[in-house]
């Protein structure tokens, strides 16, 4: 029987949308029973949100003061201790899940599957390798537990409207003190979250300075879009690292992605392959970004972007 435990990603206040995407992935396994685990210092509000996700059978909360920062070294032994009731453990392929799930897998003595993009059977999955230049089918051994991360860009969040029971559990394991949270610096902004946004406006090296990125911000605000960037733009210090899109940044699937002054290196493209519509604005008509764009416009961004922002009125 397939019993899947999805590990909730949250910040103690709200559930991250990656969780409902993991549930959608889990629900595509025939006959799967799905529980969500909320490990938190205080789980109530996050658990209430999780209970609304459709196809969830049960929400299990594990409350413990040490869980407040979501550190892998602290969560992993607790999750490993809950594993015996399940055939599968799923987490999102976000920074949180990538940090956590391999640690859980190793504690259980199994390998881990990263970035599931489609379910081919209870133990058979597709995943990307080589920055998405190849897709492999992998098969996990039937006799051991499957520990995996779900490529969130491949799934739409499962719908809400459920009212799954919430149960609290105590997990009797010692957690280490060798890893201590200090702080989280987030670029506070009123703009939509990059992972969740329906529209993303992204700028590259061509912007040339932090000040010029204002052009990107203005257009984004007109569209109600999140901000994205290329690695070159982040390395140059124009925008913070959490805006980076690509193989080593965030993998996203917005309805609309506008790439401005971005050449379209494979490492960047891999982050936007699942976008609905890709628009590219680039002065070089040979730029590889045009090969994957639905709508391309050749020209100087410094005149096009203000004109576009203005015209959107």
């Amino acid at each position, binding site marked *: 029987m397939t019993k899947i435990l999805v590990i909730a990603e949250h910040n103690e206040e709200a559930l991250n949308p990656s969780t409902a995407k993991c549930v959608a992935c889990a629900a595509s396994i025939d006959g799967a029973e799905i529980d969500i685990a909320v490990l938190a210092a205080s789980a109530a509000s996050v658990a209430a949100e999780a209970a609304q996700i459709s196809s969830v059978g049960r929400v299990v909360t594990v409350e413990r003061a040490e869980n407040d920062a979501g550190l892998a070294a602290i969560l992993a032994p607790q999750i490993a201790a809950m594993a015996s009731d399940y055939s599968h453990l799923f987490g999102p392929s976000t920074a949180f899940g990538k940090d956590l799930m391999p640690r859980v897998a*190793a504690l259980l003595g199994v390998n*881990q599957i990263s970035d599931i993009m489609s379910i081919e059977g209870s133990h058979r999955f597709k995943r990307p390798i080589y920055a998405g230049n190849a*897709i492999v089918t992998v098969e996990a051994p039937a006799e051991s537990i499957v520990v995996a991360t779900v490529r969130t860009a491949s799934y739409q969040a499962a719908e809400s409207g459920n009212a799954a029971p919430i149960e609290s559990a105590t997990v009797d394991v010692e957690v280490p003190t060798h890893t201590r949270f200090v702080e989280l610096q987030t670029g506070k902004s009123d703009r939509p979250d990059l992972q969740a946004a329906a529209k993303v406006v992204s700028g590259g090296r061509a912007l040339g300075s932090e000040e010029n990125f204002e052009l990107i911000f203005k257009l984004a605000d007109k569209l109600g879009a999140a901000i994205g960037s290329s690695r070159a733009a982040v390395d140059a210090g124009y925008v913070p690292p959490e805006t980076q899109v690509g193989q080593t940044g965030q993998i996203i699937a917005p309805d609309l992605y506008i790439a401005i002054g971005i050449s379209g290196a494979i490492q960047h493209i891999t982050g936007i392959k699942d976008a609905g519509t890709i628009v590219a604005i680039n002065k070089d008509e040979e730029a590889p970004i045009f090969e994957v764009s639905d709508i391309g416009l050749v020209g100087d961004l410094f005149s096009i972007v203000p004109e576009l922002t203005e015209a959107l009125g």
Partner: protein
Amino acid sequence: MEKILVGLKRVVDYNVRVQVKSDGSGVDTDGVKMSINPFDEIALEEALRIRESGAASEVIVVSIGSSDAQQQLRTGLAMGADRAILVESGTSVDSLTVARIFKALVDRENAELVILGKQAIDDDNSQTGQMLAAIWGRPQATFASEVVLDGDTARVTREVDSGLETIDIDLPAVITVDLRLNEPRYVKLPDIMKAKKKPLEQIALSDLSVEAAPEIKTTAYEPPAGRQRGIMVEDVAGLIAALKDKGLV
């Protein structure tokens, strides 16, 4: 601290556009350029800087794979590593087994810090450091963009989805590095000559008595579903019309 271990994986160079073989049996790596996984170069640079600051005395580079990986280890030695270990294996080795190999080397060398890339750009797994930390029972600081050592602890800034997270970890520990941690040094010709004289030890995987992990089998390779090149528009008005057409503005 005495020793830092650094992993150097031999991978297809990041500039190569990898393609699936027409019979679907794998990806075409015949005659393509091979390099050190770019994240591993950053890991090595960080280890060298720690040694140069006086906080460590020896940097050991480790690769697991075919004897061809000697080439990447020599490059690591030319960058400044003190010695190299090649754990030879004819077949590709899964993450948990790699983690167990590193654990065996940590025990043998009494290493106090292991620095690895946050992922390898071939299988894109991002697992080994976390697995090593788990079986070692030690801290992991993944996706590091800043590392500050302070005696028996390290303060590490990590690139996470919502920004930058800072954690304190006790040593011994595992750190996996992100791109912005540092810029690896260039290797100079005299260093390449010097590297030829540095020790490179070869160990057969079978000599390490590492238990193989339950295997995840790769049963098929296929090219990704491609995106089609769409339309080109002439000007902003054309762009807006095309967006309206799709109901996006």
